[in-house]
């Protein structure tokens, strides 16, 4: 177990290294010149050249990458080209919000998705199943922006139950989490339905019925735990996704997460920030997957972490 953990952590470190390299290459290939972005439109050619020199952008790729790596290993992610602040501080300031929203969104999508999936599987091919299927597909096909604004309009503006965007209290997190959860719920409900249908046909479910157990108990103790395994793999994926890929929801709800930071940095070729954010989300993904792989044997004792 520990050995597995140690090996996986080492592999993860390698993956992260790979990600730094890939991202660095991409940034090197981006035609936009970061020095130009810093210099602004009134700058003279000398000013631009001076900025390039100072940031080491004239160095060969290998040197630039090496410098970045050595600094990174000393815990220095560099300073934002445009904001001039420490990248680590910029990210740290936004991390709690991202984590909070991630957890809330995952909880929401699981609650909705699993409930819908379970009900659909139990009512397979009945009207309820069809209704829920359409709901799932609506949720997957609906643009997040539209869902977000609709929710805001109904629950914040019209009903006044929640604040109109922002960050701070429990009330603030509800709508963004629901918006994200709405999309995820579509995925989870379909996966759960499919996996439950498989499990429902297995012998041990028959045994459970033969024991005279109540339906609720059979579902909760026997069917759900056996169907949840593929879901776990999905949660690992979502952890990474929600750490950086939710610009739209963040901006609709004014949520101070990492997504907006990343988006703005990409638009303006703020290399240290892009690198930093990529590292953070890559770490989240890698850890999320690791977590999923560690949780799997805890749920299914047959899976050995070899």
């Amino acid at each position, binding site marked *: 177990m520990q*050995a597995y953990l140690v090996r996986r952590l080492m592999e993860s470190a390698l993956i992260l290294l790979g990600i730094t390299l890939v991202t660095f290459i991409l940034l090197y290939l981006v035609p936009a010149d970061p020095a130009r972005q810093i210099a602004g439109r009134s700058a003279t050619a000398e000013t631009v050249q001076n900025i390039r020199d100072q940031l080491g952008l004239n160095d060969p790729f290998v040197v630039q990458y090496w410098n970045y790596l050595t600094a990174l290993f000393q815990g220095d992610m560099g300073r934002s080209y445009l904001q001039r602040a420490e990248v680590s501080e910029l990210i740290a300031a936004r991390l709690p919000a991202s984590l909070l929203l991630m957890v809330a969104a995952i909880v929401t999508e699981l609650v909705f998705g699993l409930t819908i999936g379970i009900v659909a599987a139990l009512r397979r091919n009945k009207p309820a199943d069809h209704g829920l299927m359409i709901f799932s597909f609506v949720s997957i096909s609906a643009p997040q922006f539209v869902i977000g604004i609709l929710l805001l309009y109904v629950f914040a503006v019209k009903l006044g139950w929640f604040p109109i965007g922002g960050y701070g209290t429990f009330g603030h997190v509800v709508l963004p989490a629901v918006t994200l959860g709405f999309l995820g719920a579509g995925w989870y409900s379909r996966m759960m339905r499919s996996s439950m249908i498989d499990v429902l046909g297995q012998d*041990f479910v028959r045994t459970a019925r033969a024991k005279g*157990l109540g339906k609720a108990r059979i579902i909760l103790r026997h069917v759900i735990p*056996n169907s949840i395994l593929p879901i776990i793999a999905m949660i690992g994926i979502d952890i990474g996704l929600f750490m950086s890929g939710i610009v739209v929801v963040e901006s609709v709800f004014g949520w101070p997460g990492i997504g907006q930071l990343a988006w703005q940095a990409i638009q303006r070729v703020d290399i240290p920030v892009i690198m930093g954010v990529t590292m953070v989300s890559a770490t989240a993904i890698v850890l999320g997957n690791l977590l999923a792989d560690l949780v799997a044997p805890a*749920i299914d004792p047959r899976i050995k972490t*070899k």
Partner: protein
Amino acid sequence: MLTVRDLSVQVATPSGAKTVLDGLSFDLKRGETLCLAGESGSGKSMTALAIMGLLPEPMCRIAGGSVKLGDLELTTLGPRGYRDIRSVRVAMIFQEPMTSLNPLMTVQDQLAEVLLEHGACNRGEAPARALKLLQDVQLTEPERRLKQYPHELSGGMRQRVMIAMALACDPEVLIADEPTTALDVTVQAEILDLIRALQKDHGTAVLMITHDMGVVAEMADRVVILRHGQEVESAPVRDLFAAPQSDYARELLAAVPRLGTAPPRPEMEKGAPVLEVSDLSVRFDMRGGILNRVQARVHAVEQVSFTVRAGETLALVGESGCGKSTIGKALLGLVPWQGSISVLGQQTHGMGPGALKPVRRDIQMVFQDPGASLDARMTVGEQVAEPLVIHGLSSGSEMSDRTAELFRRVGLSPDMMQRYPHEFSGGQRQRINIARALSLSPKILVADESVSALDVSVQAQILELLQSLQDEDGLAFLFISHDMAVIEQVADRVMVMRLGQVVEEGVRDAVLHSPRHPYTRRLLSAVPVPDPTRPLPERQAGDASGTPVLPVGQSPEKLILRDLGAGHRAAV
């Protein structure tokens, strides 16, 4: 107590409803054991499921008749009503213990659940009650078992857990569907004793489904014989054995192999050795710790040597988990092994899958679990034909003719070829597996418990088939079985194993008639005798000591086989 009248069950097939149980009636009284015996696929399991209200919806349904428990009509009961009687009044042990337990819950949880659900005890008492139940079913190390998961238990242990679960609430009726099919005779005997003892203590009525006439004779008060979904005879057990009324029952009883009555094996000239195994060992590593080092090994097979000649049958017997199946798998290169195996003179050590392919044409295996060995998504016809396709041996109409012929030979109708595995009974699936293994016309066949789920008439038919193959083509068998009577019929030589090692070996008569090793003796004494008049024998107490799991670096003490003359050797 349990009254079944005119019970009919239909299953849905693509061509419409098919009646698999037709107008069955019987009564089961308190404290009585009724055996449902009969052909494989005759609807025995369907009967049990119909009574429990567990027919797989919506494919199967009760088409007519009534099932009454006391005054309560069960066929019209809603889910709520069934819940109240299951476990509390009627409990069931299923045919396949492997898949009938929830893999994600500990034994304790699965036991406590029944108790709590029916209010047999409160939460605090549940662990103690669960432990008591395991002790009742005489499971070794019950405290430890409570914390284990089903996959950590052997087949016999799981079956005991199933029984404990079924008995948790003291049901009035216990339905046991082939409760011992998967188990070796010593365990079978223990479990049968157990059911009998519990029945005595609690006055439970038992509906026992089995095809083993020995078990019938030992257990039943009355017997109902089924064939093609219909009752052919119903009689008290002694009457049935003494004077069967119907042709089928007569046939059935005539086909029952009785230990000690087998004719001598045909004396034939010894063929060339086709399979030579020496010092075969299979060990499974158990890893753990910080550096993922191997901490212990399962010594599944330890330095086993034997030779099988063309046209010869070597029988392998031994307790559950002693490594029988593992030997078979090693021969086909499915588990890593050490030692030497040569098939038709060709050494297979170190061969990759490519090199093994032609070898696998010559040596085939029928796997132990017939259900799990079939791909649920492919028609059985395709699966039987598949080896021919893989080895490019046949095609087109020739292939379908050959497949149809194989079906006929194992006693299945060729029009079943279009069906899928779940549409077959346990015994039918076993025959499909045999047909598949035979399709390549191998020179050596490893048959792992291949007739255990078959009723005696079909079993006789299959054994005859195997015999004729041996006579015609000089096929060699490694025959793994726990049924001593069957072994006596088919084996030329017998090898008895325990904890991965051979404890006794020799020609059939020597081993079966003058066993020398205590384990062999115990095995033989456990064989149920198909004679209801015979008093139950004193069983010899088991010796549960020893384990195949040893720390790294430690090997089990090698048993020295003493030569007792005429090739009969035993570790005594």
